[in-house]
């Protein structure tokens, strides 16, 4: 049991957070809803919570709105009871009730004190989920020990958030404070944890007003709450229409209403209604909380506030908007649990933003009122989107495609086969094996499985059957009882069926918190079979670091889960433990195992009915033309001369032999590796042309191409040629290469220039080219339809060959090159770390 009380400055808010952990107190909660409707396709789960009658949606709709007279003295109470059945997580079946009470009470004493304008109390009672075994109505298999009868006690963790805002009312003024319309949507079982965390970082209504304020509120919370399938193809969209608030303010003083942000749990959508200073502001929020899993909850809250005050300093509103703004980017950010951190940052950022603006506006009075969610659950987003275009595009958003793709993954055929396998008489023989001192319940051997596949399915050989079995395992339908690696071997290894509740078709996208709870729980049981593997221990350590702020809650949850687990029958527990482990093996695979639960989005795009991306299309349009074209290309291919593989091999091997010295993966570099040593020698040496590394100089000797590719080498070679009075060769070759890269419009001129300079009979620096090439070039230059950029290719090739065979080899033998070689060798050796650590 955790109770947190934080009383902020009286002027603003006092928040009382009461987080209770009492698994037993389920009944005590206002309503313990297990949303039958919510459960939707999750009907398989036996919720043994007999007393939870209410359907979440109904409860939501039944939000109680009590609105008293606006006159003074009459307190007004608005209670929003939001109940949402939470995702039936493997471990915790919980439902969360969040009731938010906005009570505007008359309080003369507070009214008298200008300081206390509003008091907001947030009361959160959290009953962490009690672990409940997910069981199929029929039991997973007749052979499984799990039967509905043994299903664990009703676990109805309750999460109640009470927010009471006390606003002093005064007679004369009809000044309803802009209101917070908190809409809360709970998404996850971990709500217990979440809510507590969220409340920690509450952001509450702040009404700083020297005069009295009357609030007239009408809060309608309508919710079509689509269960919580995170991975539903369309992403569950929850629409909240919250709070149509009519507000009238006729006060000349500052009315600061901090946008009320009440975040209660995992994917809570918070509506903040910042009051802007315009007389009739109409604020429409489209809150798009694209949380890391998949669900998008859209919360639309329209706030109509009429205020007769034109100049209201509303820094908080600004803050609210700022917060929303930065939330924007968070929304829709992507899929995968991965972006959790990001969201977290965003939230904190927005919080700070809001805080600063609030405090600056109301003269420091509003400090602390805007502590938005510093510890909010990282993996959730509460992003408010103001006219965000992204939202409209949502349907096309790539993540949707991934979920659609999920539909493919959860292969109904696969499941049909699994069901067949589990059939009583014709299925795979499942038995309880007696081992030393203990029993291994509900297992079958790999050999049995393979035999069954061979017998019952249209599978030819063992390899194929094994492959198929492996596929089943990799998707988590069957799993080895004591191995994290989801493979199947054709031997006596024992395997077990996964309970349908954990099948991938249920579109799991479990959160890191759930994983943390699971791992934490494992540490509590000192059974060898439950000992954490190395990678799991590592993960646990990481998660602990990540969730350090709410580790207490995770621990609490784990504790209560393990408590429940202990009450179970021993054999049953064994099965359940292993099934749970297998579930996490699928969703948090051991390093080195293929992750079958996430798909490459590129591929999803292609297969996900994305029209133009698929093949077919253009190809099918004109078959004859297409085919003819293909034939043309194939003919070309036939005509091409290809070399023999042996020659190709030789060439590649020769290449390797030549360059292995330069492959730093084979030969370690001669200069310190800059990535490892923090020394800049290598970079500096390369930058400074005077100290060309020996390797480079050596490389010049490989081929003319290598020499010319290196700018320093080219420079050296040019110098050498000049000495030999044959510099025009290189110049010609270079200008031809240069010309080829020019745009078409300049080609003609460039060609003419080259012709004049190097090839024409009276050229200033004639190149030594055979007459045949010159003749070819002349023809090309004077061609009827103009010269093209390849007209000197033959001549250039000739010159290149000349340089290669003549000048280049002479260069390699020359003192110039040798000097350079020796010199650079010396230099390299003599370079101390002259250049220090300069960037």
């Amino acid at each position, binding site marked *: 049991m955790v109770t947190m009380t934080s009383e902020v400055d009286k002027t603003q808010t006092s928040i009382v957070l009461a987080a209770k952990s009492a698994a037993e107190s389920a009944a005590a909660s206002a309503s313990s809803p297990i949303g039958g409707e919510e459960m939707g396709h999750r009907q398989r789960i036996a919720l043994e919570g007999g007393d939870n009658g209410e359907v979440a949606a109904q409860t939501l709709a039944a939000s109680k709105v009590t609105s008293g007279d606006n006159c003074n003295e009459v307190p007004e109470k608005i209670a929003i009871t939001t109940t949402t059945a939470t995702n039936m997580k493997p471990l915790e079946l919980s439902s969360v009730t969040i009731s938010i009470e906005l009570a505007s009470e008359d309080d003369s004493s507070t009214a008298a004190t200008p300081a206390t304008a509003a008091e907001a109390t947030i009361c959160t009672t959290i009953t962490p989920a009690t672990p409940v075994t997910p069981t199929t109505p029929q039991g997973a298999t007749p052979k499984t020990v799990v039967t509905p009868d043994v299903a664990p006690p009703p676990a109805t963790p309750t999460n109640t958030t009470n927010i009471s805002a006390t606003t002093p009312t005064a007679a004369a003024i009809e000044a309803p404070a802009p209101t917070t319309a908190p809409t809360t949507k709970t998404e996850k079982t971990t709500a217990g944890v979440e809510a507590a965390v969220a409340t920690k970082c509450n952001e509450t209504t702040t009404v700083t007003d020297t005069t009295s304020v009357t609030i007239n509120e009408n809060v309608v919370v309508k919710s079509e709450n689509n269960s919580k399938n995170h991975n539903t193809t369309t992403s569950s969209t929850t629409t909240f229409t919250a709070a149509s608030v009519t507000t009238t303010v006729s006060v000349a003083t500052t009315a600061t209403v901090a946008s009320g942000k009440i975040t209660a749990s995992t994917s809570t959508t918070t509506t903040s209604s910042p009051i802007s200073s315009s007389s009739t502001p109409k604020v429409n929020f489209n809150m798009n909380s694209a949380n890391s899993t998949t669900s998008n909850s859209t919360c639309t809250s329209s706030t109509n506030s009429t205020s007769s005050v034109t100049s209201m300093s509303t820094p908080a509103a600004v803050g609210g908007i700022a917060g929303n703004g930065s939330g924007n980017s968070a929304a829709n950010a992507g899929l995968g649990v991965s*972006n959790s951190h990001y969201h977290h940052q965003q939230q904190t950022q927005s919080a700070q933003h809001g805080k600063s603006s609030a405090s600056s506006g109301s003269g420091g009075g509003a400090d602390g009122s805007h502590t938005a969610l510093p510890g909010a659950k990282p993996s959730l987003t509460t992003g408010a989107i103001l006219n965000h275009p992204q939202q409209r595009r949502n349907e096309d958003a790539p993540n949707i495609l991934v979920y659609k793709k999920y539909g493919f993954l959860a292969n109904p055929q696969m499941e049909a086969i699994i069901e067949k396998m589990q059939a009583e008489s014709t299925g795979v023989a499942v038995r309880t094996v007696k081992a030393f001192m203990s029993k291994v319940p509900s297992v079958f051997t790999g050999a049995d499985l393979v035999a069954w596949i061979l017998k019952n399915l249209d599978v030819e050989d063992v390899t194929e059957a094994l492959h198929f079995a492996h596929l089943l395992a990799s998707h988590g339908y069957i799993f080895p009882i004591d191995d994290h690696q989801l493979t199947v071997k054709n031997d006596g290894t024992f395997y077990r069926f996964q309970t349908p509740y954990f099948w991938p078709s249920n579109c799991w996208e479990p959160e890191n918190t759930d994983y943390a709870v699971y791992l934490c729980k494992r540490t509590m049981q000192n059974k060898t079979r439950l000992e954490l593997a190395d990678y799991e221990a590592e993960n646990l350590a990481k998660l602990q670091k990540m969730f350090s702020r709410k580790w207490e809650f995770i621990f609490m949850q784990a504790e209560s889960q393990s408590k429940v687990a202990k009450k179970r029958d021993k054999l049953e527990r064994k099965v359940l433990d292993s099934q749970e482990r297998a579930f996490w093996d699928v969703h948090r695979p051991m390093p080195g195992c293929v992750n079958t639960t996430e798909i490459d989005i590129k591929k999803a795009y292609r297969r996900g009915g994305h029209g133009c991306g698929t093949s077919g299309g253009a190809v099918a349009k004109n078959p004859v033309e297409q085919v003819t074209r293909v034939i043309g290309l194939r003919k070309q291919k036939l005509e091409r001369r290809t070399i023999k593989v042996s020659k190709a091999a030789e060439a590649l091997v020769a290449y390797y032999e030549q360059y292995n010295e330069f492959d730093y993966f084979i030969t370690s570099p001669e200069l310190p590796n800059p990535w490892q040593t923090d020394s800049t020698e290598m970079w500096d040496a390369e930058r400074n042309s005077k100290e060309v590394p020996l390797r480079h100089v050596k490389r010049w000797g490989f081929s003319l191409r290598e020499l010319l590719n290196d700018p320093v080498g080219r420079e050296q070679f040019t110098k050498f040629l000049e000495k030999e009075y044959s510099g025009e060769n290189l110049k010609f070759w270079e200008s031809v290469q240069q010309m080829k890269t020019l745009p078409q419009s300049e080609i003609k001129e460039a060609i003419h220039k080259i012709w004049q300079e190097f090839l024409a009979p009276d050229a200033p620096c004639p190149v030594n080219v055979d007459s045949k090439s010159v003749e070819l070039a002349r023809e090309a230059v004077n061609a009827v339809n103009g010269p093209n950029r390849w007209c000197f290719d033959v001549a250039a090739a000739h010159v290149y060959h000349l340089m290669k065979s003549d000048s280049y080899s002479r260069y390699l033998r020359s003192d110039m090159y040798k000097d350079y070689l020796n010199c650079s060798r010396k230099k390299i050796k003599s370079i101390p770390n002259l250049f220090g650590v300069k960037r």
Partner: protein
Amino acid sequence: MPKIDPETQKLHDEINGMIQKFKDDQKAKADCTWQEKCGDMGDVPKLRLSSKKILKGHINKVNSVHFAGDSRHCVTGSLDGKLIIWDTWTANKVQVIPLRSAWVMTVAFSPSGNFVACGGMDNQCTVYDVNNRDASGVAKMTRELLGYEGFLSSCRFLDDGHLITGSGDMKICHWDLEKGVKTMDFNGHAGDIAGLSLSPDMKTYITGSVDKTAKLWDVREDTYKQMFFGHEMDVNSVCYHPSGFGFASCSEDQTARLYDIRSDQQIAQYEPPQKNTGFTSCALSTSGRYLMCSGIEGNIHAWDTVKVSHNAMLQGHENRITCIGLSPNGMCLASTSWDQQVRLWL
């Protein structure tokens, strides 16, 4: 299936006949196997790379990495909607470029290091000038290349002024960045183009596609020069051999292959020891001796190309590796993964 008229049928037959001829031809040219030829070569040591540096900064899946010509800076693109330019040597961020769309699938650094290009599910390619920043210090967008009907899956700079892209609409596009116009645009494959690799001399390039083939192109032409078969599933990535005579490819079908351009066929096939992972990206070492492929299971596999033996497995990433890239000087291998990390292997 629509009814095939005799003419088409005839053409199809002709094609099939030709394919047979190719096969015969290839067989004829395959006078020896790669292994036989290279069996007598000495073994190379086991690839001793370890992830010396982890570049931290992305907060979502990282999808792509590419080095600049200086071998020191690299750019990574992530689903968090950011491009980050790293100084790989210090592991510091040099620049963060926020994107308009978070769905970035591919990034490219120009060899000069002046520009970066990126694109993805926004069906466009965006080019940023790294050296030209606006008031807030963010690199200025210089070009938005529009007109794609599918996501951008690959892009590479020829130089500062020219860019080649491959996209999910099966098209290859050539862009003149100075003018901002498309200079060429043609259907490259019968499926999404997945990978693109420029030859060392920048005159040709190879594309890999989900139509299971790889094709060789001349940068000046819009018809392919050669087509390479063999893979049984999507070719996810291709990588030119540094010699320019061949290229490596890796595929979803759990193999990587080496093709030779001059002999016009596959000359070697590489498989992981346990056939348990498809490959997303490949790279060849400077000498072409090591082939490194990133697996969807989160390991980088390395083979000795010449001996066709599995050489090493580099472990470290915790989720699918999306892309690997070797620095031009061949010293540093960068990898990006769904685990949000960018690792440098040295």
